[in-house]
């Protein structure tokens, strides 16, 4: 093995029933480098990572690790840890009903002399770890009390805190804000300088250019090439991933969106709140309008939407739809009023893992129609096929279980579920989370098109540029409170200023 190489994978092949996920893939990781692993949804990135960490049994090829003679075959994440590979998987897989501290130390708890778990010491150490990352949490609280973004940070903290030669991060930034991303990058650079080799998967191209040294591109389970960052500017990277050039992203036109504010009001919230998550707020959304919700991590963006939809039942205030006061006790009430909500936590609140792609797509529509008015099988298949095509879902067929799809493709299926209900008001909480760059622009176009058809949309994203492209107005959240709205001069800078706490009240 070359001197500075810490991990090599050669000729890796892996097949799932009906899918050749990897075919003869090579990968080389050097000491002290941050290596981006790039590819479209379903290209095989997560599969390759799971081969390295022993979750997947690959059928051909070999993996070698610096300091170990002969090929290495891991059989579990623990094996991988023992040879110095620490991993943050795409879907957060911590224990929601354990405390943050327990999650950080599970499997490697510090012991007292009496061989009992030393709670005090690990609570203290956990607090230090999280403080160092600049994340304000109470480590004795259960993990489920925190947002997906915080959970993602905890998963990262746990992986980083372990002594490792190789650190693998599979889309760790998918629900983080710029600020947390920057914190993560500082951490990654520090580890790189200590000689750790880091594999980094992301669908945000700018992140690649701000931290990575090298790029490996996969396409349809095949190795396309390995490049240094300098060799592969953005346009070429996209071309390598897609196998063709991308239409320009900035081409989205918000036709007529400026005038949407003059349309009748679809949704009007007055003094709506949910104890402990979001303080009373007023919000009007007009027909055909795309309203963004911007704010820092934990500012109550999702919570605002959940209070409207009844995911968290509002404690105070009134909501009216089309000028009529309504009472929403639970999501089905909202659905019956023509609403829909794509939640941000795909694994916990989105997918029904063991059901097929078809069933996952028609679920909400069927729920609205009710149990005794089943959609015919032919209708179900027609809908499923329609949306698989529209959103370019990569699946062997419509009867594949959703859990067998790649992360980004699962996301597309959940989006399809809501599009299939043809709602008048759609809440999209991080709709493009984990979706590749090509499809992302398609989805943004779709959102603008829906608004053009007179639908109202509440759009939440940690990526401000994405909201700027689609929204005509933004609600600004801070500390669980809606502090204002921006409807003119929507620029990155203005929005950043507003969410950080300038004077935005108008």
């Amino acid at each position: 093995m070359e001197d500075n190489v810490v991990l090599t994978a050669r000729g890796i092949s892996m097949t799932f029933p009906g899918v050749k996920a990897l075919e003869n893939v090579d990968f080389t990781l050097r000491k002290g480098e941050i290596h981006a692993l790039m590819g479209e949804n379903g290209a095989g990135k997560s599969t390759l990572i799971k081969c390295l960490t022993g979750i997947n049994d690959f059928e051909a090829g070999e993996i070698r690790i610096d300091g170990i003679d002969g090929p290495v075959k891991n059989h579990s994440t623990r094996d991988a840890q023992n040879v110095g590979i620490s991993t943050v998987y795409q879907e957060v897989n911590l224990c929601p009903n354990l405390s943050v501290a327990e999650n950080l130390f599970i499997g490697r708890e510090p012991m007292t002399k009496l061989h009992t778990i030393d709670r005090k010491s690990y609570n203290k150490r956990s607090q230090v770890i999280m403080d160092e990352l600049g994340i304000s949490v109470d480590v004795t609280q259960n993990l489920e009390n925190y947002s997906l973004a915080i959970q993602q940070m905890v998963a990262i903290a746990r992986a980083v805190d372990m002594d490792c030669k190789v650190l693998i991060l599979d889309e760790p930034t998918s629900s983080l804000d710029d600020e947390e991303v920057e914190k993560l990058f500082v951490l990654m650079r520090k580890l790189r300088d200590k000689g750790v080799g880091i594999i980094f998967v992301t669908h945000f191209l700018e992140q690649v250019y701000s931290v990575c040294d090298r790029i490996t591109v996969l396409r349809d389970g095949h190795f396309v090439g390995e490049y240094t960052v300098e060799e592969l500017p953005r346009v070429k990277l996209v071309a390598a991933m897609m196998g063709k050039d991308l239409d320009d992203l900035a081409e989205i036109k918000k036709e007529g969106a400026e005038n949407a504010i003059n349309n009748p009001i679809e949704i009007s919230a007055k003094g709506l709140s949910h104890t402990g998550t979001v303080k009373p707020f007023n919000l009007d959304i007009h027909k055909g309008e795309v309203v963004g919700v911007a704010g820092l991590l934990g500012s109550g963006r999702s919570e605002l939407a959940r209070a409207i939809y009844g995911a968290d039942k509002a404690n105070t205030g009134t909501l009216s739809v089309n000028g009529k006061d309504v009472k929403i006790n639970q999501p089905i009430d909202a659905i019956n009023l023509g609403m829909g909500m794509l939640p941000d936590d795909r694994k916990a609140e989105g997918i029904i893992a063991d059901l097929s792609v078809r069933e996952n797509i028609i679920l909400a529509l069927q729920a609205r129609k009710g149990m005794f008015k089943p959609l015919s099988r032919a209708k179900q298949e027609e809908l499923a096929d329609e949306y698989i095509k529209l959103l370019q879902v990569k699946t062997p067929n419509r009867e594949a279980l959703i859990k067998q799809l790649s992360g980004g493709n699962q996301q597309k299926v959940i989006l399809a579920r809501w599009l299939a209900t043809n709602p008048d008001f759609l809440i999209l909480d991080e709709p493009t989370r984990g979706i590749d760059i090509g499809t992302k622009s398609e989805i943004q176009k779709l959102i603008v098109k829906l608004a053009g058809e007179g639908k109202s949309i509440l759009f939440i994203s940690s990526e401000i540029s994405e909201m700027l492209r689609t929204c005509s107005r933004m609600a600004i959240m801070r500390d669980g409170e809606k502090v204002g709205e921006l409807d003119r001069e929507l620029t990155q800078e203005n929005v950043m200023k507003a969410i950080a706490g300038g004077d935005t009240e108008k």
Partner: protein
Amino acid sequence: MKNGKLSWKKIKSWNLLLPVVALLLVMAVNIIYDIANGNNPLAFFTITLQQTTGNGTILYGRIIDILNRGSEAAILAIGMTLVVSSSAGTDISVGSVMSLCASFCCMLLAGYGVSSTSTLAVPLAVGVLGGILMGVVCGMFNGTLVAYFKIQPMVATLILFSAARAIGLLLCNDLIVYVRNGSYAFFGGFIGLLPTPLVITAICAVIITLLLKKTALGMFIQSVGINPKASRIAGLNSKRIIFLTYVLCGLFAGIAGIVASSRITSADSNNIGLYLEMDAILAVALGGNSLGGGKFSLAGSIIGAYTIQAITTTLYALGVSAAQAPVFKAVIVVIIVAIQSEPVRNYFKKASLAKKAKEVA
């Protein structure tokens, strides 16, 4: 070669593989036993026509006996499957509820305080429907506790597990009520050539299958069992669906109770449905269903229930006494359930992979 491999894979992923293999195993034991004893090797499968005292003709044979005797467990297993799927828990009260329903039905038919009657106090249908309704009420009670009060299913159903049998005894004024009326014996007897309990099981299975498949109920139950949070966001009323599965489970317990009581034309509170909840739960597990909820196969559970009965009948045929039978039953069940468990399956998977690797090298 390639083709053969593919079909083997298909067989391996067939979800009824386990229950069917278990059933085949039991049959094989019977054949071996018969051969060893110099009987007709197919004695187990032989079905003959027999004249009854009432001048009717019925089917007779070991298989028929198994299908007849296993029916209560099979009916219970239908309801249990739904409960397990939606709530990832088991309803341990079904045996006791059976007994309560039987007592209530017999009390209605005989009149309160009467210990033996040959004339019915109310029309047969009223008594039978009353008994079944009692099962539904018990199901509503369990369902309320589990779905709306969020009590662990095992704990919630423990209440009726211990109380239902006693309530039944109260209803019968501490007596064993006999309904010596030919019409009541019908549910545990024969209809034409076939045992009525088997026919009732088949009707239950067909109706519930239609309900699950022709409405969205089947998908909703599985969805709630797999991911209740996501189901709620998608517009399902998880609580109501879980509640409904417990009601259905109670309904089937009621039907099973009537069958069991009709067999002995009495309400023997202390013995009807005794330990039958265990058989029902086992049947679900044997059927290849995960007790962790989610996806389910009704056919698997029903085959599982009859497999358990086949094991019992076989053991008796082998001369194992009724007192010792549970020991052998336990051993067999341990083996079957272990084969199905994750570690064992992984072990075989790894072993076959290693073999493949060796072949390649």
